[in-house]
C-alpha cells in the first residue's frame, strides 16, 4: 500500500491528472454508464416475478438460444478460418496477400445494414449463393444457417486481428525445431503452436461471440425473423418491443438487462484472459 502511494506521487510530475480524470469520469458517466443504468433502474420497477415472467417467455428463451447458438457456431467457424487466414498472411508469400490483409477489416468498415441486405439477396433462393446451396440441399436464407453466415461475416476480423500480431512475434524456429525432431506438421501445430496461439485465439473468439450475440443489422434481413421457425435473434425481439404499435418498454428493458449481463460476463472473461496472457508473456 505504501509502495503504491509513493508510485502515485512520483508519477504526478506529469500534469493533467485531475483534469483528465474529471473529464473521463464525467463523459463516461453521462454518455455510457448513466444511460445503461437507466435500463437497470427501469427493470427494478418490476417485481422479480414480473421480470422472470417477461424473460422466460417461450419466444424470448428461443431468441436467446438462437442468438447464443448461432454466435457460438459462427465464432468456432471464424476461429478455424481466422487461424488459417492469419497463418497464411504472416507466414507465406502469395499473390494478392496485401489485398487480403487490407480487406480483412471490410466487415468493420461496411455498414451492417448494407452487409445484411446484400447477404440476404445473395443467399435467397434467387441469389447466386442461394441457388448453389439449394442444389446441395441447404436452405440458407430465412434459416439459422443464414444467421450463422451473417455472423461469420461480421466476426472474422476479430479473430484474424487478434492472432496476427502474436503470430508475427512467434519465432519460426520453434516449429522448425519440432519438425527437426521428427514431429508431424499436425503434431507441431497441436503441441508447439496452439499453446502459444491459444490466448489470442480465445480473445478473438470472445470478441466475435460478444459481437455475434448482440448483432442486429447484418442478421435481421437474412434471418426472416419468424417466431415459429425460431429465427428471431434477441436484438430483434428488443427492437420489436420499441416499435410503434406494440411498445413494451418493460419487456424490452428486462430482455436488454439479461443481454447486458451476458455481455458483461463475456467482457469479464476476455479481460481475465488478456491479463493472464500478459502475465505469461512477462
Amino acid at each position: 500500500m505504501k509502495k503504491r502511494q509513493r508510485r502515485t506521487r512520483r508519477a504526478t510530475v506529469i500534469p493533467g491528472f485531475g483534469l483528465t480524470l474529471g473529464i473521463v469520469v464525467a463523459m463516461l458517466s453521462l454518455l455510457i454508464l448513466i444511460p445503461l443504468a437507466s435500463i437497470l433502474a427501469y427493470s427494478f420497477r418490476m417485481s422479480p416475478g414480473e421480470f422472470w415472467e417477461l424473460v422466460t417467455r417461450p419466444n424470448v428463451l428461443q431468441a436467446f438460444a438462437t442468438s447464443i447458438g448461432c454466435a457460438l457456431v459462427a465464432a468456432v467457424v471464424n476461429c478455424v478460418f481466422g487461424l488459417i487466414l492469419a497463418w497464411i498472411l504472416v507466414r507465406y508469400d502469395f499473390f494478392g496477400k496485401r489485398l487480403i490483409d487490407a480487406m480483412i477489416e471490410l466487415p468493420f468498415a461496411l455498414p451492417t445494414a448494407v452487409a445484411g441486405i446484400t447477404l440476404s439477396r445473395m443467399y435467397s433462393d434467387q441469389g447466386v449463393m442461394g441457388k448453389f446451396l439449394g442444389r446441395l440441399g441447404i436452405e440458407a436464407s430465412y434459416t439459422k444457417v443464414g444467421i450463422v453466415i451473417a455472423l461469420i461475416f461480421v466476426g472474422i476480423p476479430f479473430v484474424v486481428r487478434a492472432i496476427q500480431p502474436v503470430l508475427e512475434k512467434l519465432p519460426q524456429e520453434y516449429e522448425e525445431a519440432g519438425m527437426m525432431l521428427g514431429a508431424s506438421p499436425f503434431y507441431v501445430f497441436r503441441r508447439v503452436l496452439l499453446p502459444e496461439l491459444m490466448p489470442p485465439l480465445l480473445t478473438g473468439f470472445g470478441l466475435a461471440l460478444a459481437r455475434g450475440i448482440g448483432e442486429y443489422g447484418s442478421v435481421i434481413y437474412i434471418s426472416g425473423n419468424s417466431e415459429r421457425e425460431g429465427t428471431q435473434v434477441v436484438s430483434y425481439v428488443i427492437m420489436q418491443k420499441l416499435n410503434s404499435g406494440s411498445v413494451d418498454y418493460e419487456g424490452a428493458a428486462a430482455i436488454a438487462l439479461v443481454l447486458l449481463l451476458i455481455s458483461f460476463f463475456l467482457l469479464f472473461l476476455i479481460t481475465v484472459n488478456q491479463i493472464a496472457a500478459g502475465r505469461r508473456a512477462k
Partner: protein
Amino acid sequence: MERKGRDGRSPEKGAGSGADAVRKVSGQHRQEGIVPVLLIVVGILFFLLMLVFPLVEVIYRSLKDGLASYLNAVTAENTIAALKVTLIAAVIALAVNTFFGLCASWLVTKFEFPGKHVLSVLIDIPFSISPVIAGLAYIMTFGRMGWATPIVEKINQWLGTDISLVFSIPGVVLATIFVTFPFVSRELIPVMQAQGSREEEAAVMLGARGFTIFRKVTFPHIKWALLYGIILCAARAFGEFGAVYAVSKARGKTFTLPLEIDALYMAGSADAITQAFAVSSLLVVLAILILILKQIVEYCGKDGR
C-alpha cells in the same frame, strides 16, 4: 513436408550470419509442400466467398436498372436528407470521441491510480454490447417514460428551446457517440503505453507546461495512431444501424443512410430494392475509401516509428 522442412533448415546451420536471408529461403521451401498450398487456397476461397462476393453483389444490384435510375436513387430527396444527418452525426461523434480518447489515454497511460483497470474495462463497454441496447438506454433515460425527461424539459423551458434527446437529430448523435465511444482511446492507449512517460517527465523538468508537453512531446508519437482511431470511428459512425434505428423514427428528417437503406429495402418492390442497393453503393465506396486510408495511415505509422 517433413523432409522439405529439414532441407529448408539445413543451410541455417552452416550460415551463422544473415539469418534473415536464410529464413526467407527456408520459408520459400516450406511453401512448396502440399499443406501450405492447401491452406492458401482455403484462405483465399474463404476470402472471396465471404468478403469479395458481397461487394460485387452490391455494385451489380445497384446498377441493374441502369445508370439513370441509379443516379435518381442516389439524388432522391430522402437520400440527401439522410446523407446530411449521417454527416452531422459522424462529425460530432468524431469530435467528441477524439477529445475523450485523448483525455482517456493520457489518464490511463500517464498515471497510476486505484480503479484504473476497472476504468479501462468500462470505457470498452460499448464495444461489446448490442447496439440495440445503446438505443434502448437513451430511450429509457430521455424518452417519454425516462427519468431524465423532466430535467431536459426544465432546461428547455429555462433556455426557451425545444430540444428533444430521442427521436430527433440530437438522439441520433448521442446514439452514434455511444457506439463509437472507445474507438480512439483503444488505438491510442497501447501506443502511449509502449512510449512510456520518460519524455514527458523530462519536458516537465525542463519547465514545459501541460498542453505544450502534449503538443510538442506526445503528439508527434501518437499522431498516426490517433488518425487510425479516427478512421475506425468514422467507419462505424457512418454505418451504425441498430442504435440509431432505436431512436430515430422520422424518414426524411432523422434517418441516416443505413436507415434509409432499410426503409427502401423493406418497401419490398423490385425498384425500391434496387434503390436500396444504389444508396448502399455510396456506403460501400466510403468503406473502401476508409480501408485504403487506413492502409496508408498504417504504412505511414510504421515508417514514422
